[in-house]
């Protein structure tokens, strides 16, 4: 746990109860009784997000129904110096919405209205609690859709997507959340209304949207988002290619790009993952392949047939042992069904799994996979791999049993090893799931103390009292020092006695 984040266990029961009574009394003035939860049995559903290994009891859960109520809750919390953790659907995978033991969890689930679809301007104005997929569904009658498609898109909300800068399988061609959001309206920590961006393509002054998107709820509270909609491609087709060697598969990815092709999607699965998903969806995957690549082209029918032919040639030259091209939409969806079900399929193999999310330069795909294979032996745990190969974003799924404390511990070490190896290879500790609470230690590896302090200074420019989602994303110096000690214990760092930050 971060030093700045007190846990309920460390706080005296009496102190917590007193504070709780004070906050409940303040918020009861602005919220109806049903919108204010603080009894243990009522707040249990809010104890964690998609990262279930970490749990915390919120002091109070507020469920405002109007913007005026949100502003009033923020004003009251600011006055009382109470931390506020905004929460959408709770599907996040890094603990970004983990409650603060002495804070208010601000659930924005009731803001779930699509305000406007403007087909001429190709924009949608939606409240923060609207689900990602619901935007594309509402835009579909106009031949438009919202491009970023994180795998949780049926459940995750646009407010959460803004907080995490969510990606998906089409990022290389269509960009991340940041590239597809025009305007965010919401509140500062003080309850003051604020608007970032506009319906124009830029705005005056610093481009604050760049830091707001991906800030994990630490700079402002998002209430309404204007997103760009893009025309739905007339056609999409997908190639499924098998490789008998991981290095050949990795090189094939580089060769597709080198040929001047930007695929709409380019995904890879390793052999253990292929076996797991085939058992789950029965899509006819090649079980002998060491790696399977899914390579998609979209556009006009003419464009797609031109591009598919070029992709096929490159993949064949790269040593693909089997190639199939989707003949129709049903077959294309079948090709994708395994990739999209990688997580539930893994869930059937193991009582628990931890999903990692680092990014590496594409050329190191084979290197990291081989390194992960060695780690499986080192930590005595199995790992299946899916990659957004086009972006170099990997999702190793480490399988373990959470009831076995030693397995959980080994899993954490395995995960940390993957993140550190990714940074060593020139990558980053989080591609799209965010830092939250899960990767705080990894941030110590990726960033120097002055860089972390600069990020904290940036946060204080928005939130001087550090009340919005405190203790997430930026690790404290003390935490990093502690993490450094752990390294020394594991014998990874030589010269343990020299000063380190």
């Amino acid at each position, binding site marked *: 746990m971060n030093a700045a984040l007190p846990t309920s266990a460390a706080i005296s029961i009496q102190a917590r109860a007193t504070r709780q009574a004070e906050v409940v009394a303040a918020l009861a003035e602005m919220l109806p009784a049903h919108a204010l939860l603080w009894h243990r049995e009522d707040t249990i559903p809010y104890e964690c997000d998609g990262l279930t290994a970490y749990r915390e009891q919120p002091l109070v859960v507020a469920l405002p129904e109007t913007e005026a109520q949100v502003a009033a809750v923020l004003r009251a919390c600011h006055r009382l110096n109470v931390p506020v953790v905004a929460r959408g659907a709770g599907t996040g995978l890094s603990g970004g919405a983990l409650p603060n033991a002495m804070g208010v969890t601000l659930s924005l689930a009731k803001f779930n209205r699509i305000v406007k679809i403007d087909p001429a301007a190709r924009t949608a104005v939606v409240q923060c609690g609207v689900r990602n997929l619901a935007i594309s569904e509402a835009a579909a009658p106009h031949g438009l859709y919202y491009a970023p498609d994180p795998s949780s898109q049926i459940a995750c909300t646009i407010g959460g997507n803004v907080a995490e800068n969510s990606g998906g399988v089409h990022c290389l061609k269509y960009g991340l959340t940041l590239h597809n959001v025009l305007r965010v309206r919401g509140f500062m920590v003080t309850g*003051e209304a604020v608007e970032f961006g506009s319906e124009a393509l830029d705005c005056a002054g610093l481009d604050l949207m760049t830091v707001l998107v991906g*800030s994990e709820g630490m700079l402002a509270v998002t209430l309404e988002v204007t997103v760009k909609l893009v025309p739905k491609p007339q056609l999409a087709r997908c190639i499924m290619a098998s490789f008998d060697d991981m290095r050949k598969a990795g090189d094939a990815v580089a060769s597709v790009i080198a040929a001047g092709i930007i695929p709409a999607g380019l995904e890879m699965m390793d052999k253990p993952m292929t076996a797991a998903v085939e058992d789950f969806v029965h899509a006819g995957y090649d079980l002998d392949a060491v790696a399977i690549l899914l390579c998609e082209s979209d556009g006009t029918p003419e464009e797609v047939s031109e591009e598919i032919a070029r992709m096929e040639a490159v993949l064949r030259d790269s040593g693909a042992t089997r190639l199939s091209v989707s003949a129709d939409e049903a077959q294309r969806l079948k090709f994708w069904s395994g990739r999209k079900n990688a997580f539930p399929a893994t869930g059937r193999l193991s009582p628990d799994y931890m999903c990692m999310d680092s990014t590496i330069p594409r050329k190191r795909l084979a290197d990291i996979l081989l390194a992960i294979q060695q780690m499986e032996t080192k930590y005595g745990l199995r790992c299946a791999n899916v990659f957004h190969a086009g972006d170099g974003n990997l999702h190793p799924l480490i399988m373990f049993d959470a009831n076995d404390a030693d397995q959980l511990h080994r899993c954490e070490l395995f995960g940390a090893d993957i993140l550190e190896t990714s940074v060593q290879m020139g990558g980053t500790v989080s*591609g799209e799931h965010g830092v939250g609470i899960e990767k705080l230690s990894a941030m110590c590896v990726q*960033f120097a103390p002055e860089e972390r302090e600069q990020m904290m200074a940036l946060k204080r420019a928005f939130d001087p009292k550090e009340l919005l989602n405190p203790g997430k994303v930026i690790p404290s110096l003390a935490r990093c020092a502690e993490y450094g000690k752990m390294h020394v214990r594991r014998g990874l760092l030589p010269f343990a006695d020299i000063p380190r930050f």
Partner: protein
Amino acid sequence: MNHNDPALQVLIDRVQSARAAGAQLCIRGGGTKDFYGEVPQGEPLDTRVLEGTSSYEPTELVVTTRCGTSLAELEALLAAQGQCLPFEPPHFGDPGLDTRARGATVGGMIAAGLSGPSRAAVGSVRDHVLGATLLNGQGEVMSFGGQVMKNVAGYDVSRLLAGSMGTLGVILEVSLKVLPVAPATLTLRMEMDQASALAQLNAWGGQPLPLNASAWWDGNLIVRLRGALAAVQAARATIGGQVVEPQFASPFWAGLRDHTDEFFEGAHTAVKGGASLWRLSLPSTAAPLALSGELLIEWGGAQRWLCSAMPAGAVRDAAAKAGGHATLFAALDKSPGAFAPLQSPLDRIHRELKKAFDPAGIFNPGRLYPGL
């Protein structure tokens, strides 16, 4: 970034001594955008001492290059591998010289944050920034982002630098996403009035067409298609109009990008005579504005250049009413402010961010907003 680079040490020393002396620095590359924003102030800090491309791997679609690198040279390096900066950054500078001699640098491109004709279709400079190394007001060298497409580790400070006008620090090095040059390009021209052109551009925007750039001026609509050969050929039939041959089309789009085209030549002359060149950034669907002057529309309606003698207040009000903002791009008198004024709490966030990165106010004082 090699922290022991002597050229980097020169810059760090300059910042440290400015800090000790309470001096202010004007960060400057080729000086091609001296006219842009508020008037430059402070002792010049020449970024061209730190130049060169540190890494470029075409199959990664990433180039990492230093602030003083010539933009023209970077583009030539990419072109040799069949790649490009898809957002077409402007060069500006002396139109009598070729782009290399004009001297625009990579640092200036990021700091100004300006993008060319293709911006509406492919995204802006900031959309292509993957990482950056910054020298802040404490003389600290810090890296944010990285060299990979997806990165959500910490706040995205590197993209915040795009358009920051050097107010947050010296941009030392950037990593940019590059793309392959599209296989086919075709320019079409047709006669059309302003309102019809705006409606048409927005209608095309909602269809899966390889529309890459557009310009409307003086009753003429010119559009550029770019993409796979088959897609461009198919779209040609949908869009109609007359084909503009490449030997005329290429210099036209370059002239639009660099402001050397006929419209901008006229605007530069008018500016010398006391008129103002405004850049209006609006929702693409905004109806024609009731403003007098010469007008050129780009980005499918989202960027409108207006050369006019109208009072600043009238132009800014009209832009704000249409949902956008107006920048006083070029004028002899910039007393109305180069950039549209900020409302609370955005003005406060700007002041606090400036303090967070440059507490002593060393870098480009007042270049973005007076007092910032």
